[in-house]
């Protein structure tokens, strides 16, 4: 018979009911943080230099709303163009052809290596370098179209080009990582079934790569939404520019920056909805389909 370490008659058949460990210091730190946030809010609410009524007056102002809408669609168009370019750049980077690969590497190096601000100004003032825009056949006199560059390059057009090309450089690395994350066995299986390279990429590799690509692309979209504020440099009337124009006439800079900040926060909060949808959709067959989108804190791991 086995000898027990502790001599007792009990056989411990009951489930363990133990008092949970209390993490006192975590609560103390939390209380301090709460106090700090409260102090900040109180300071803002009672400050004679911040006029709450101005915030209320401008938050649904027509020009502000119009600017916010412009911000959204500039972000959307730039992001779509950037994603398409990024996929092409990633495929070129993975190609065995040295010219295609080299072009992709150089493109990424250039657009990642210079400040976005500088690129926006460059596209905005393109007319200073090439005063005329001409479309025709090189080395001949045939010209289909010619116009002043400053007329072709409207501020919004220049802004979208700048944001798209810059974003394409970053996103191409994300797409490349996604493609590389797919097991080579997948490509081999596709080949053995007689699928061509393009078909394999579209139907087998990219849908699986999406799982890796989407979370960082969500990040990029949020980043892009905020970067549109820089287009104020080339006079695109998006949200930030509008807030700036209004504050220049009524001298309520802080209130109008708060209005703009409020809308940026709202727009970014809304963006997380399509992201969770896409993550869910491309998680098919891999992620736990029953996983809840969020879990309440303090509930522990109870089933």
């Amino acid at each position, binding site marked *: 018979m086995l000898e027990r370490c502790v001599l007792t008659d009990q056989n411990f058949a009951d489930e363990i009911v133990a008092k949970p460990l209390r993490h006192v210091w975590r609560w103390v730190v939390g209380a301090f943080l709460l106090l700090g946030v409260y102090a900040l809010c109180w300071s803002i609410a009672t400050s004679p230099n911040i006029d709450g009524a101005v915030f209320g007056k401008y938050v649904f102002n027509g020009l502000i709303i119009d600017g916010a809408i412009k911000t959204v669609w500039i972000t959307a168009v730039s992001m779509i163009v950037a994603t398409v370019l990024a996929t092409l750049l990633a495929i070129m980077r993975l190609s065995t052809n040295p010219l295609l690969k080299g072009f992709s590497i150089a493109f990424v190096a250039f657009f990642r290596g210079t400040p976005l601000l500088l690129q926006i100004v460059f596209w905005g003032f393109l007319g200073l370098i090439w005063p005329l825009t001409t479309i025709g056949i090189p080395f001949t006199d045939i010209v289909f179209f010619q116009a002043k560059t400053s007329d072709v390059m409207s501020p919004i057009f220049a802004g979208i080009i700048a944001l798209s090309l810059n974003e394409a450089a970053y996103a191409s690395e994300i797409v490349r990582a996604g493609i590389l994350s797919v*097991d080579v*066995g*997948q490509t*081999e*299986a596709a*080949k*053995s*079934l*007689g*699928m*061509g*390279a393009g*078909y394999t990429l579209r*139907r*087998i590799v990219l*849908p*699986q790569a999406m799982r890796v690509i989407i979370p960082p692309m969500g990040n990029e979209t949020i980043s892009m939404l905020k970067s549109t504020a820089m287009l104020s440099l080339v006079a695109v009337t998006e949200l930030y520019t509008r807030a700036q124009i209004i504050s220049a006439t009524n001298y309520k800079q802080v209130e109008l920056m708060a209005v703009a900040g409020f809308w940026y926060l709202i727009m970014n909060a809304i963006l997380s909805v399509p992201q969770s949808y896409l993550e869910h959709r*491309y998680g*098919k*067959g*891999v992620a736990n389909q029953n996983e809840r989108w969020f879990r309440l804190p303090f509930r522990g791991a109870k089933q």
Partner: protein
Amino acid sequence: MPMVEAINVKKRFGSNEVLKGISLRVEPGQVLCLIGPSGSGKSTILRCLNHLESINAGRIYVDGTLMGYREEGSALHEMHPRDIAAQRQHIGMVFQRFNLFPHLTALQNIAEAPIGVQGVPREEALEQAAQLLARVGLSDKADHYPSQLSGGQQQRVAIARALAMKPKLMLFDEPTSALDPELVGDVLEVMKQLAKEGMTMIVVTHEMGFAREVADQVVFMDDGRIVEVGTPAQVIDNPQHERTTAFIRSVL
């Protein structure tokens, strides 16, 4: 005309020669089992047969056509990937690690290539896929994703997926090596049935029982060369070479 004819095939990876002149001949309806220690080149020759790997010397003919190259006079031209893909349509392959498409259900895995590559109408392809699933005994798993299937079930779906292209030749690369022992039997059963129905098969395997029962020809490879060829009775039960004897003793 033989279904597969490989003549003096050589393959190098860098300076490492893994195939040192392999010749094989498989008649239609025959089953050939490739056996040998790991690193002997048996998986490599299989991958060369459908041009997943290019070869450095020799010729491979499947159903009378040269694989991967076009012969014009005395010159060889590399084939366009599109034409290689067309050649592969008629050669099914089953992998050691299944390689099912994880984002597609069992049924979609089977129907994908017939719809996308051969242009079979969707309804017809799904109908055929369901029949193939029934044939491998997995009718109830049609809407399961690969991650929801056991290894043995995944491998049977993979066999059905290859069969959906109506191949003339099936290549099996150690199809049961990644399976738990109790799941091996179901997969071998499907393969035996296939052999009985007259499919031409080349199987890289360590399952001597299967080879003995199904194979018309057994080839023992070692160090990139064919050491011994013959019927199962000759090669497995009465090997002539020392290395074959040692190998057979180690796996039985």
